[in-house]
């Protein structure tokens, strides 16, 4: 049962091959037995899940079931869930129970989906290895001494370990695509503004975007159909109708122009990973697509620009965690200054504090122009690179990450080495473009991902390309050892 895709679950639930209660109960049991090892899920919402599954079964019986009725999912613990603790992976919010739902959660509720629990993540989504979570690291189901990637490592590991058929995730600099690649699942970061950020705890507002993770592109399309919406509560949400992302999955790839950026195949890319990605590109050629070498000349500037803009925004976004109204508060504050200092020193982890300090520094008087101002200029250049490229190509493809999953602690003392993990993913966030990761090989027993970057709001074409690839390859079907 745990190997069923979302599409298969929808079909089986509709045909009464099994009930949502059965599937939900089965996966809850599976989470209980397996997740002690992976630590993918912070909060299991058993009672709520079973109640929702029963309600879904009733609707299924009545025959008025919405699209994802009865499908169990895991939600990243960054999405606020009414009445269910939403920690964002931080001690700061360990006691925070939101009195409202994120729009994404609302959308899934309207769609009849069942929430199994809240998935682990890097604290405040800051990290590429899931090592910064207050709830401990998530282990990669493919190799438990390796990281699952981050920040959506819990979601990726949960899908990879077949604890859930799909999950929500968020991506600020690669936080969907990188863990998807490292855990061998399919993940999509939509165009900025496509998925509402209301109720999604902010890391860097101009970069954050929610998206789906699942085992197939077909499932990602089903999830995105539900997730994407215009939301008047989010001023950056784009007022644009949502297409049926499932409708074009089977379109032919004949004549598809695929841009292959030379900067994504340069120094730093693991040769085996490169080989896997090149092999995937050959599959596309075989399906009638055309490979065109392109240049994204400012790629190297994306990491430094990102590590000014994202911390700058974060430094302000995280100011609200002051111990005054909700969340963690230090014991016996002596005065206001003491309350602020100790609450934030004790409530935030090291990486979060580092980024708040970087961001605060970058915005300070006398440094603003040199850092934040300059980074915004670079951001425009990077965006322009893509605009130029998309005049010649329909999609851009390359590796998601430079190499497969690395061992715990191996980059812990070198933040910059960790930041370079996102070298191929960050620029799409800076440009606001959609990006995807699709399993395309196994290196040293661990999966690697093919990244597909689309033009603005061209998610349907990306999903089409990914789905067609998954029709002729089996990488996405591989499960970690002991999982199958």
């Amino acid at each position, binding site marked *: 049962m745990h190997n069923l895709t979302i599409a298969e679950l929808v079909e089986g639930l509709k045909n009464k091959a099994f009930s949502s209660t059965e599937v939900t109960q089965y996966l809850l049991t599976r989470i209980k037995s397996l997740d002690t090892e992976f630590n993918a899920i912070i909060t299991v919402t058993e009672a709520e899940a079973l109640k929702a599954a029963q309600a879904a079964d009733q609707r299924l019986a009545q025959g008025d079931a919405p699209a994802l009725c009865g499908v169990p999912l895991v939600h990243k613990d960054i999405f606020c869930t009414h009445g269910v603790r939403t920690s964002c992976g931080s001690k700061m919010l360990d006691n925070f129970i*939101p009195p*409202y739902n994120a729009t994404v959660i609302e959308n899934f509720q309207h769609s009849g989906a069942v929430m199994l629990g809240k998935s682990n993540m890097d604290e405040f989504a800051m990290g590429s290895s899931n090592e910064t979570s207050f709830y401990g690291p998530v282990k990669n189901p493919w190799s438990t001494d390796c990281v699952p990637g981050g920040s959506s490592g819990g979601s990726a590991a949960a899908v990879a370990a077949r604890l859930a058929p799909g999950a929500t995730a968020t991506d600020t600099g690669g936080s969907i695509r990188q863990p998807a690649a490292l855990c061998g699942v399919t993940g999509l970061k939509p165009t900025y503004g496509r998925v509402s950020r*209301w109720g999604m705890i*902010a890391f860097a507002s101009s970069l954050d975007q929610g998206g789906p993770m699942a085992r197939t592109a077909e499932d990602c399309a089903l999830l995105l159909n539900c997730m994407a919406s215009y939301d008047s509560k*989010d001023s950056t949400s784009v007022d644009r109708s949502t297409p049926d992302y499932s409708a074009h999955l089977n379109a032919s790839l004949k004549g598809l122009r695929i841009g292959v950026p030379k900067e994504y195949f340069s120094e730093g890319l693991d040769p085996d990973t490169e080989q896997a990605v090149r092999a995937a590109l050959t599959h596309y050629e075989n399906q009638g697509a055309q490979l065109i070498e392109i240049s994204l000349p400012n790629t190297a500037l994306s990491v430094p620009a990102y590590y000014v803009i994202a911390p700058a925004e974060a430094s302000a976004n995280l100011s609200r965690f*002051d111990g005054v109204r909700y969340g963690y508060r230090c014991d016996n504050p002596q005065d206001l200054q003491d309350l602020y200092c100790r609450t934030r020193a004790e409530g935030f982890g090291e990486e979060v504090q580092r980024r708040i300090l970087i961001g605060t520094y970058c915005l300070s*008087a006398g440094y603003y122009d040199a850092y934040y101002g300059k980074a915004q200029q670079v951001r425009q250049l990077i965006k322009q690179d893509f605009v130029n490229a998309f005049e010649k190509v329909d999609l851009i493809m390359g590796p998601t990450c430079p190499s497969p999953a690395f061992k715990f602690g191996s980059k812990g003392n070198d933040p910059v080495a960790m930041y370079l993990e996102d070298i191929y993913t960050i620029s799409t966030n800076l440009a606001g473009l959609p990006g995807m990761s699709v399993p395309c090989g196994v290196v040293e027993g661990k999966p690697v991902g093919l990244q597909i970057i689309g033009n603005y709001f061209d998610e349907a074409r990306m999903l089409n390309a990914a789905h067609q690839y998954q029709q002729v390859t089996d990488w996405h079907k591989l499960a970690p050892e002991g999982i199958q």
Partner: protein
Amino acid sequence: MNWETVIGLEVHVQLATKTKIFSGASTAFGAAPNTQACAIDLAMPGTLPVVNQQAIDYAIMFGLAIDAEISKTSVFERKNYFYPDLPKGYQTTQLEKPIVGRGTVAVQLADGSSQSVRIHHAHLEEDAGKSLHEGNFRHGMSGIDLNRAGTPLIEIVSEPDMRNSQEAVAFAKKLHSIVTSLGICDGEMSQGSMRFDVNISVRPQGTTELGTRTETKNLNSFKFMEEAIHLEVERQIDLIEDGGTVLQETRLYNGETRTARSMRSKEEANDYRYFPCPDLLPVVLSDQRIETLRSNLPELPDARQARFIEQYQLSPYDANILGADTSMAGYFEQATAKSGNAKLTANWVTGELSARLNADNLSPDNSPVSAEQLAALIVRIADSTISGKMAKEVFEGIWAGEGDADQIIEARGLKQVSDSGALEAMVDEVLAANQSMVEDYINTDPDKRKKKLGGFMGQIMKASKGQANPQQVSQILAQKLSEML
């Protein structure tokens, strides 16, 4: 040495929107603490701001009223600092690209002259909540009320164009008049709807270089503003004349003790780390939106004052007083329409009515004497039913809720005696009873006789218990006396 004072103002105007600038919570004043603060106002995680379009319109209307440039694109920024009544840890405001650019405000001074004050810009921002340190909080704790957090404000920043407290107060009053006339602010000073920060410096008369300025913050009445300016000007001059130097600092004025103290110096000032708010898109305005607002702009004080002079033949002085305040102007026009006597109505509205309203801290909108009631009273003065003196007594009766003018005149028997037969009898009686005065009058030099009339008038009015129509009495008296010559 003679010193010249240089004053610039920053004025915070609370916009009269029903809901907050970035949330749907109510902005009504006076609710129980924290009952008007929603998840957004509390800066709960994951919440996002959406701009209140009414607040944008109100800011544009202000810009149009002072003939300012309206920015087609304005940008909200985050001003970062920690304080318990600032839930997000930053205030959303505008810095580099404010919605209203340069403009001018014409100010009328008490001596009849007028002055033009330049506006540097006006920007939109959210108000903070309130920290409550005094009162009922035990264990030395402070209370926080976030009802006000997120209330829309425009901050109007003037150039340093004022030279004394009278000019500054006249400018502040003019702004009050403009924003209340526009209906974008309720103008309730006591509720903090308008608050003034005053930048003050002094320099030797005749020099052009600006002295070091101080900023006295959060003055919420014209009186406090005037007092605070006097105090600060005096302090700066004393300081310099004693060989000291003025430090750039923020000061706080205490209206109760009439003293001010330093709040923080320039060195202690925060680095606010402004940057564009990534949760909000730039505010882009279409020409159509601006033009629609322009064509629907309500009558502004200057235009209204000019119209009052033209339409009602009011003196510029009366027109200024009546035209400055929308509700006062409305009251006046309503009463005049019924009374048919603009001059007399203007006198009563600016005189008796204003005095009583001020004494009880009321606005014309909630005056116990309605415009119709005042008009009915004025009609009775104009048709000589009652004298002006009696009218004041009747006015008090209406104010006290005893009924309309006619009812009170009737009930109290205040009707003026205008029956000429009765008045002639009264005059005859007084003349007969005061033979010596009559003889004295007759023997007086003809051109000095007029002065003697007052004595007779007093006797007659006294005899009539004040009810005799004085104009008529004076005519009859003059007639009778001339017959005796």
